[in-house]
């Protein structure tokens, strides 16, 4: 058993070392025009607490929450069909359609959305490309396959006999869904929601390309600070702050939903 633990410890040690380096850099002074950092300082944390960075954090959280909610609503019927369709062929077809986006690269998919949202394929009544709406569409599309798979797994564990029993006692389809299926699928909803929320919090390529540089999420700002402004200590501080926020949000959401999922 100890032998099996060794590789895990090595991998974790590498991650811990990288995180440690990031932590250290976040406390080093940034000197504009130089690659060499100065001495220890708290100035980086003061800088990233400026309104423009806090706005980015708030926008990211809102966009992630909206993505999670929309993904959940759109994925549920597909997952339900995937779990309950009696025909094996139909299930296979649905599964292939669900997984298809995984077989194309993220950048290719994003560029496809640039064409669709840019009125080249569909004419939208309101501007979509280079707006938060457009970024939301892209994020939902990327998140749906994961959400569908998690929900389908949860739904397939619900014995259809419960639904039949509720129907035989006089409950209509809507009531059966609301009182039986939905509560029993809560573990899948919570897991899928947490996965999509955490995933979206760290989104980079979608806001970069579909947002046209106007929609900034946390990862984009870290890249801007580190790679465009050469402010590596600032980027490290913002990354640490975001990491702490992500952990806090996920722990909070996990606790909030733990009772419901049980």
């Amino acid at each position: 058993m100890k032998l099996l633990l060794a590789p895990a410890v090595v991998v974790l040690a590498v991650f811990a070392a990288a995180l440690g380096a990031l932590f250290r850099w976040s406390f080093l002074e940034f000197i504009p025009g130089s690659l060499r950092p100065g001495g220890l300082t708290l100035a980086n944390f003061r800088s990233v607490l400026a309104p423009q960075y806090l706005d980015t954090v708030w926008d990211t959280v809102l966009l992630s929450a909206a993505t999670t909610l929309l993904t959940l609503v759109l994925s549920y019927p597909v997952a339900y069909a995937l779990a309950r369709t009696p025909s094996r062929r139909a299930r296979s077809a649905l599964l292939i359609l669900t997984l298809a986006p995984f077989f194309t690269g993220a950048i290719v998919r994003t560029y496809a959305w640039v064409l669709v949202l840019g009125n080249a394929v569909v004419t939208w009544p309101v501007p979509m490309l280079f707006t938060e709406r457009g970024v939301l569409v892209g994020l939902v599309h990327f998140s749906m396959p994961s959400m569908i798979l998690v929900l389908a797994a949860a739904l397939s564990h619900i014995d259809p006999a419960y639904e039949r029993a509720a129907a035989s006692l006089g409950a209509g389809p809507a009531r059966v869904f609301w009182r039986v299926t939905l509560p029993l699928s809560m573990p899948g909803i919570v897991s899928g929601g947490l996965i999509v929320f955490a995933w979206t919090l760290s989104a980079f390529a979608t806001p970069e390309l579909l947002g046209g540089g106007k929609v900034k999420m946390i990862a984009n700002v870290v890249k801007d600070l580190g790679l465009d402004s050469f402010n590596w200590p600032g980027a490290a501080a913002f990354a640490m702050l975001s990491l702490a926020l992500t952990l806090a949000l996920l722990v909070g959401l996990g606790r909030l939903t733990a009772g419901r999922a049980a």
Partner: protein
Amino acid sequence: MRARVLTGTLVALLTVPLLVSAASAQNALVVSIWGGNWKDTVEKVVAKPFTAKTGIPVEFEVGGTIDRLAKARVAKGSPLVDLNFTTTHVARLYISDGLYEKLDMAKIPNSKEIAREAFRSEYHLGSWAYVYTVVYRPDLVKEEITKWSDLWNPALKGKIAMPDFDPSHIITIAALMEGGNEVTWQKGEEKLKQLKPSIAAFYSTDAQSQDLMKTGQAPVQVMLSVNAYHLQEQGIAVKIVQPRDYPGIVGIDTMAVMAGTKKADAALQFINFTLSKEIQSELVKALRAGPVNTGASVSPSLAGQPGIFVTPAQWKERGYIMNDEVRAKNLPAWREWFTANIVKK
């Protein structure tokens, strides 16, 4: 026995290419440069004839400006590459961190023929030039654009794109319009804020800039002249403006020898070769960038076009060169201000 022979043969077949490659890498001059067209052109126009002339093989390490800078910093003292191409202001960061070696000008005789603007420091020399200027698609924009101030025309609302990774160009232009410059850039702040409603998007790569132009999503751009010429070659009818009010903002890519390299002599030979009239003439043709050797031959259709300076007067009048050090130092503050006031919704 047969199995041993077979194994031996297989091992030999597998290891010989590795050994050959290792030996070649040991002798080769390793050049760090951007990928895509930049690397392909330098390989074809400079490296191959250089190897044919000197017998020194050349290998390339490609990557983005900052990736390569980060790698160089990590490998400080025993560099992974011998010679580096980067923009002149980013080169300042290499210099400040002791990553470049002072150039022995006696070993670069062709440096006597280059424009004085190409002498960026005793560590790095220009290899070619270009401008960031206004580029637009006349088929999608009715208004004629002839100067920087035309960007402020309300008719261009929602049509302009510009780089957000480096807003130096438009910040400097706005400052120049208000009587300032890159040092007193704050003078242009209010002017630049007026441009905000006209900006459709910000781009972070050359490819993104070209896509925005091709698809017409941003038919007016503050764009790298080299990319605009590239679009023209692809059949996209873009007009590259030689602004009448203020010059284009000059960009100079530079070459330098990495500190600690064991192939400094070969690197200096390569720099000298790149600066020769013949190679500079070929580079203009291939890149549509301005030559730094004042004796390079440039076709009449290109001479004097935006970013292609062939006389000292053109260098002076048609291009504004920012102070590299000021630019390197101010960039973080510019980006912060730009993000907060122009990019943010």
